[in-house]
């Protein structure tokens, strides 16, 4: 067995929530090759160092995605029980050790710690998710932009970067390093597409249901999809199902979608895995219109299940796969989206796209975990 890889998941253990980034953290841990040693650690701010995460704490945080919804307060209480500060065991990081950080973080002390470790010739590896906080700050209504800069400066200084898509890597090279043609930006390893663990389906022409995934966060374009759908003829039982969480205060422009009570449109805001599988089991195609995503995992996951996809061409997740089984759009104009949906109501055309989707070789999380381990141990 080679020397261990330390996994800095300070944010994951201190604030475990169901974000896309933390999903990747879970998959990295679950799919890390058994023959390789992985030592999850977190920062101990008082000691300006790291400590080993106790197994119960890690198990609890790791399996939060499989539990029913728990409150933040309850989560914090459980973690205090499993990870009492007075019983933390220091992780002594030495020259030559490898630390993999699969997180985005803005804690200036943590950034400073990483900089210090770099000077001590510790090998630092970063999974880089996206640049939206810096390129599209309005999406997150960021007020204190200066607070986000130490992390960006850190990863621009550290050479071992693994991007979740080629698109993000290219963006980092051209906009952060300003060396678009450089090979020094890092590697791109696309995320796993098999998270829903569904069997691949075959095309059933009687299915006339479109499914549109995504949180109602205001930028997924559900209102455009609805408008496009309403332009169809609806002669043969066409239906549209939206699946996604609704924030406490959804954007005003989404209210027509959320309040739609028509027979042909359905909004499912809290789908279990089983319900999700059932929906994908009756769907004809999926739609994912947002170009402003860190990745766009739902689009890849629906493709993995065999469904053709209507998506924005700039979705980062598509940058690492061929265009097979997809209608990639360069616009979010409802007319253009409606035209794509009409194409997918044509049985012959749809059958062809189903065949193409079936032929796609999409990466699994298992492959992803091994690829990350190999990269960090290279």
């Amino acid at each position, binding site marked *: 067995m080679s020397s261990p890889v330390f996994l800095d998941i300070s944010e994951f253990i201190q604030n475990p929530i169901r974000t896309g980034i933390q999903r990747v953290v879970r998959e990295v841990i679950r799919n890390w090759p058994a023959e390789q040693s992985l030592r999850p650690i977190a920062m101990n701010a008082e000691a300006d160092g790291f400590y080993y995460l106790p197994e119960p704490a890690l198990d609890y945080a790791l399996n939060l995605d499989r539990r029913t919804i728990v409150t933040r307060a309850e989560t914090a209480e459980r973690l205090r029980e499993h990870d009492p500060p007075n019983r933390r065991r220091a992780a002594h990081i030495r020259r030559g050790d490898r630390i993999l950080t699969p997180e985005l973080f803005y804690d200036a002390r943590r950034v400073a710690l990483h900089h210090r470790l770099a000077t001590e010739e510790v090998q630092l590896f970063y999974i880089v998710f996206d640049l939206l906080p*810096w*390129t599209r700050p309005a999406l997150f209504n960021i007020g204190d*932009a*200066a607070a986000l800069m130490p992390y960006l400066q850190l990863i621009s200084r550290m050479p071992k970067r693994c991007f979740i898509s080629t698109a993000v890597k290219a963006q980092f090279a051209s906009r952060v390093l*300003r060396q678009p043609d450089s090979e020094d930006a890092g590697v791109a390893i696309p995320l796993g597409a098999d998270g829903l663990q569904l069997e691949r389906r075959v095309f059933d022409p009687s299915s006339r249901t479109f499914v549109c995934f995504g949180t109602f966060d205001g930028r997924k374009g559900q209102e455009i999809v609805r408008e496009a759908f309403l332009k169809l003829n609806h002669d043969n039982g066409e239906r549209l199902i939206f699946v996604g969480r609704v924030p406490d205060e959804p954007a005003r422009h989404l209210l027509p979608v959320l309040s739609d009570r028509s027979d042909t449109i359905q909004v499912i805001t809290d789908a279990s895995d089983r319900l999700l599988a059932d929906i994908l089991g009756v769907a004809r195609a999926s739609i994912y219109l947002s170009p402003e995503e860190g990745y766009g995992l739902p689009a890849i996951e629906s493709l993995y299940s065999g469904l053709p996809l209507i998506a924005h061409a700039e979705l980062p997740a598509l940058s690492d796969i061929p265009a097979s089984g997809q209608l990639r759009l360069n616009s979010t104009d409802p007319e253009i989206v409606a035209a794509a949906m009409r194409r997918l109501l044509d049985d012959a055309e749809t059958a062809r796209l189903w065949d193409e989707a079936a032929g796609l070789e999409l990466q699994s999380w298992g492959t992803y975990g091994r690829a990350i381990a190999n990269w960090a141990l290279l």
Partner: protein
Amino acid sequence: MTEFGVETIYCDARALQDPNYRYRGVGQHSASLLSALGKARASRRHPKLIALVDPLAAPLDRIHENLFDEVRSQPRRKEHGPAWFLSLSPMTHDPTWIAPLLLDEGLHRIALFYDLIPLSMPDRYLSGAAQRIDYVNALAWLRCYQTFASISRFSADALIETMGIDPCQVFVTGVAVRERLEPPVDQPPLSRAERRWIVVAGGGDPRKNPECALRAHARSEILCRAGLRLAVFGNYSPEMQQELQRIYLSEGGRLHVLRFYKDLSDGELHQLYREGLATIVASRAEGFSIPIVESSAAGAPVVVSDVGAHPELIEDEEARFDPDDPDRLRSILERLALSEDFWSGLRTKQSALWTRYTTSSVGQRFLDELNTRVGGLAAPTVRRGARPQIAVLSPLPPAASGIADYTAATLRPAAEVVDLHMFTDTEDAKPEQAWASLQPVSAARNALRRFDAVVGVMGNSHHHVEVFDHLMTYGAACIAHDARQTDFYVHLLGLERATTVASSEAGRSVPAQQVLDWMHNPRDLPVLFLSEIAENANPLFVHSPTTAKLIHDLYDVRPTVLPFAQYRLLPPGMMLPQQRRRARTLVGVHENETLLTTFGFVGQDKAPKELIWTVRMLSNWGHRVRLVFCGQAHPLSKASYEALAQEIGVEHQITFFDRFVTDETYMQYLSATDVAIQLRQYKLGGLSGALNDCIAAGIPSVANEHLANAMLAPSFVRRVPDNLSPLLLAETILAIVDDSQVRSAALGEAQAFALEHSPARYSSLLLNGLGVEVPLQRRAT
């Protein structure tokens, strides 16, 4: 249309707030007439009766408040349509407070008129210079009224003769006796034998002259033998009573028959009159005399001094005396004591007197006269061809205020076509040839009548306190420079007032701490602290369409947008290559160094940390840049920004000033800089004088979208998102630096922009917004 042909009656109700008047003669008379108006209002479609009260004085008593439909604290007309203005006390309360109404040609102005006694007794009432000035001032404003409701013929004649008022403008109402002093229906008068008093109507004012009555009584053996004691009522202090007792003793009187009464209830007073053989009213001057009517109502004959309005109330000369002739009074009193016929005859002649002065008859007279005399409103007079007179209330140079400079520079062109009268509290403001006059702000209220328009200029500094007070009291057009007035309220009007206004604007109770938080973090402000200015300004001018929209959304007032003018005179040729090279040498910029400058006071809302990180990004990319904060930085803030610069390794590329930046240095950096960056993190439509300068100079600049749009900035001001990102800032700066054509294009665009934003155009738009018609040949160009 309503009963009186008007929709609204505004009433200066300060007399009902004043403890010296509210429950005494003026207050009682006013209340009875207002009550008559109230009864008329209750009958049919009635005009709205609005009390205008001084917010700094005592509030109206509930009994008075109920006389009105509404109470307002600003003496201004808001309703459209025909309206009256009624003053309850034109000579006793500062007329300049209600100057906007007295000058409003759209109002019919009515005064309740009492007397001109101070003119006939100047030693008593006008002994001081201030008193004389106030009285003459009140007399001058009295001419603004069109109709006078006088309390007596005597007062009416004095008004007509002394002031030269047209008799047609004056009518007489009399004064009503209070209803509780009217005789009860089932109460017969006492017989003469039952009456044991001679009653003297006195009062604290020396002109009431009780001394005459005391002397007359003390000198009379007859009255003494008849057992007729002397009762003096009025508000006399113990010292005054002792002095009167001394006089009484010195004239031979015996103190046990002299009684003083004060603070009598209406019932007690009525009973005192009723038990009197006669009432003496010995005053030296009266515009009316309510004790005469009250005594009549109680069935007691009255003997009065032969002055003022007394003869028109008591026509019988046998019942009148010279106030300086106690023996004449004594003889009348003795005759009353001795002769039942004389007493009965006098009582009979006077018995019906009070019935002409009941509340209903006085009120009806008032209403009838108003209906008869106040016809259609005359159209306002227009002076054609005259040069418009504009008053501007503003700080002026050399006040340390950008607004002072702005006002002076942008209004100079207006002075070519109108007479600009500048009112300022800037102590050492120098008269300019352009100004028709230069006076303190406090003087403006005395001259409102002269102006076609009055414009207050508001900002957040102490230079605007008097302007604000004027605006709140008299109303005016207003140029609101700032997008919010938080600092003005907190620092200059006090946290309590700021909290009150914040709560009013937010529609909920806002804690004081939250107001302070908002002041320090304007990004979080949900309101603008502009509601009072918006309410009192007509019209309200702002410089940003964004602010205008916010004001409309928040306060339902639609401001007029005056595009911010370029007012600073930049040195000619400062952007020529050789001048720029020279400036760059002077400020120490290397030839291959890119100079980034952000102008103006350094504050958190101008995103200094983001700018420092921007330097870090540009340095990462191999660019040699220097960032200059060309404005004073607070030492504490500066230390934190320098610490950040040091932490990320750009400390040698950042320059701060810890002192006020001189004009010379400012101009050098304007000339030397490659890219100007002006950011504002709060989104209230605020403007930037510095960005204005950058645009005027044609400097390729970067600004966040909100600020750039508020400034209507040209395209050479590149926009970055309001949610800032040093990455985007750095990219935008590089795009400018890499564009070799950008500077020449900017200069061309700047010239076109300058024409649209010139002081001349600003002046022209302002005058247009004020509704001031300027003859074509005189218009500013």
